């Protein structure tokens, strides 16, 4: 075991000196985390992170205009829209043209009178062609309000037909109904399941994906030593050949654990990811490294050069990334080939373990940790058998 540690420390020292390990283990994943944070960083904010900038010009001074104003105020308070008030329709249109706002609502003069008289009434929505989403949202809000006004007017007509209201009351009834609170509202649903938030899930997938590359180090390092001639020197030393494999595996696992944990900590700081109880997360990280090391030892074992092994490991890492849902979410199903393959990836068990500890405690990591260790033991045993041929080839 002493020889294995000597070889491991020697590998670590060289990796630190060559700086290659910093790039694959830290710089690349952290850079990607930073970019992902810029792109998707607000996904899990309470307001959904989406705010539409809309102008509002209420020239109508009647109850219909006031009713729309109160609806917009509610939307603004909920964070969906950021409203800029304008005094007239021209100013609201000009603001859209100038790009000051992406869309504007214009409630013309006499709108309330028209509603009360049962005449044609119109809310104008002006949208920027380059901001279709905001224009659509503005239109939907206006349509919704117009529908409620129309419903109110219909209710007034029904009341008039029934003889419970006079013709002059129809407008007032319509106004009252349009401003009444809805019978039912859709409130945001707080997640009650044990799913990770999207930022954590994304980072967990990415962290394991990059960790697969550092987990491939033992095979690459062995083949690299063979190419530079030092492997024969190690094998000629009075140590068991297994010490060489063990030393390289120890070095690779140390780098992988440090890389994975560093990425978890960094993403916690810059992306507010939540990994659950630290002890459980650390246990899962170590077990994921064991599994990944085993899988990647098989991936490169048939290669004759470090370059061939690197290429083979890249293919396996990307395949595992896809199957583990790192890049695109997979359809949820408990049956079928895809589901079986999914369960054969370290990514999937790592995510599953994180979900369990996020909802529960550190002890809930144990089932996933065991699965990862079994995966590491099986693939590692095959990898060790193949490594013997790498050493003596």
């Amino acid at each position, binding site marked *: 075991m002493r020889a294995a540690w000597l070889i491991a420390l*020697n590998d670590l*020292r060289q990796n630190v000196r060559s700086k290659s390990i910093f790039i694959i283990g830290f710089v690349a994943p952290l850079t990607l985390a930073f970019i992902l944070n810029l792109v998707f960083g607000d996904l899990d904010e309470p307001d959904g992170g989406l705010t539409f900038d809309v102008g509002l010009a209420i020239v109508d001074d009647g109850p219909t205009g006031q009713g729309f104003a109160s609806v917009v105020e509610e939307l603004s308070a909920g964070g969906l829209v950021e409203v800029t008030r304008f005094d007239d329709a021209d100013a609201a249109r000009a603001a859209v043209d100038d790009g000051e706002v992406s869309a504007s609502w214009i409630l013309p003069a006499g709108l309330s009178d028209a509603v009360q008289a049962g005449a044609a009434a119109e809310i104008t929505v002006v949208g920027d062609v380059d901001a279709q989403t905001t224009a659509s949202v503005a239109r939907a809000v206006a349509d919704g309000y117009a529908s409620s006004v129309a419903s109110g007017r219909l209710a007034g007509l029904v009341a008039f037909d029934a003889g419970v209201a006079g013709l002059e009351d129809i407008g007032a009834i319509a106004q009252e109904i349009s401003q009444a609170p809805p019978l039912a509202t859709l409130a945001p649903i707080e997640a009650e399941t044990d799913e990770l938030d999207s930022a954590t899930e994304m980072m967990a997938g990415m962290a394991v994906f990059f960790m697969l590359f550092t987990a491939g180090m033992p095979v690459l390092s062995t083949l690299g030593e063979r190419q530079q*001639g030092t492997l*024969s020197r190690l094998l*000629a030393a*009075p140590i068991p050949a297994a010490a060489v494999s063990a030393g390289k595996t120890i070095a690779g696992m140390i780098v992988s654990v440090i890389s994975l944990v560093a990425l978890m900590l960094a993403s916690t700081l810059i992306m507010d990811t939540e990994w659950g109880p630290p002890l459980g997360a650390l246990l899962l990280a170590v077990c994921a490294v064991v599994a990944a090391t085993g899988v990647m030892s098989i991936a490169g074992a048939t290669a004759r050069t470090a370059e061939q092994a690197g290429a083979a490991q890249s293919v396996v890492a990307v395949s595992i990334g896809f199957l583990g849902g790192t890049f695109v979410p997979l359809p949820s199903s408990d049956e079928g080939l895809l589901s079986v393959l999914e369960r054969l990836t370290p990514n999937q068990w790592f995510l599953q373990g994180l979900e369990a500890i996020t909802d529960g405690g550190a002890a809930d990591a144990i089932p996933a940790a065991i699965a990862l260790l079994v995966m590491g033991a099986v693939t590692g045993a095959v990898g060790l058998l193949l490594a013997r041929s790498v050493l003596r080839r």
Partner: protein
Amino acid sequence: MRASTRYDGPVLEVRGIAKRFGPIRAVRGIDLHVEHGETYGLLGPNGAGKSTSISIIAGLLDPDAGTVEVAGEPMTTRSTSARAAIGLVPQEIAVYPELTARENLRFFGRLYELAAKKLDRRIDEVLDVIGLRERADDRSSEFSGGMKRRLNIGIGLLHRPQLLVLDEPTVGVDPQSRNSILDSVEQLSREGMAVLYTTHYMEEAERLCDRIGIIDQGELKAEGTARQLTASIGEREVLRIDVVGSVDGVAKQLGATEGVASVTAREGGFDVLADDASALVAHAVTLITAAGATISSVEIARPDLEAVFLHVTGKALRD
């Protein structure tokens, strides 16, 4: 310190080793032994089986047949005690480029379980032997090819092996570094270390080796001191002719000439082993001229290892 106790018998005893790689029989039943303080040269062209033999002797490969004993201990890919008695200097420059000379020596010294204080002292001694004391703390990636070669040898010496195995240690080095390496090997031999030295440079074998084994096509074709080997071909001489142009069929005609032991066609000429080379010159010139080629030089050499190799294998050493 992980080293075997001194064994009074031969430091290296190789009996009938053979190794096959698929259809290729790389080594075909080689026997040799090396005594304490003896430098044994394994002389042969590229692909003769030298490196495969070295790999078996150093415990990197298991032979298909035969046995190897180092300092009385059987050598296999699993034996560790026999390996402690060997210092291997591979043909490749087997050093870590990111480490300094001292760090390279310290790492391998620890693998041989040299105690820390002894190791530091021994590292300084070895740095002196290989002439790298001044550059001990520079990374080996900054070294010249010759300096890397010397460090390569230094690592093999570190644990004071009973047998130092040098596999083509001077390939690709400048004349000054080569001379330095040969001086070091001579010094080690004088100090009583047994050396197994493979090379395809005849001059190195003649200068360094107490005994020489000529290896070709995986077989040990001849063995003895340089004097014994040259004597084995009698008073024959070597006629070396360099030509320009086509000489098809000339080698066969020369070979059929009386007094010619063997003819080897090489790139740009012939090497002819003959009883009386001087008497053969006129006939050779006639044949070559008739074939339409031009002679650029003619040389008659006294018997040397090159001639021995030609005689034993039927081809030139550098083929």
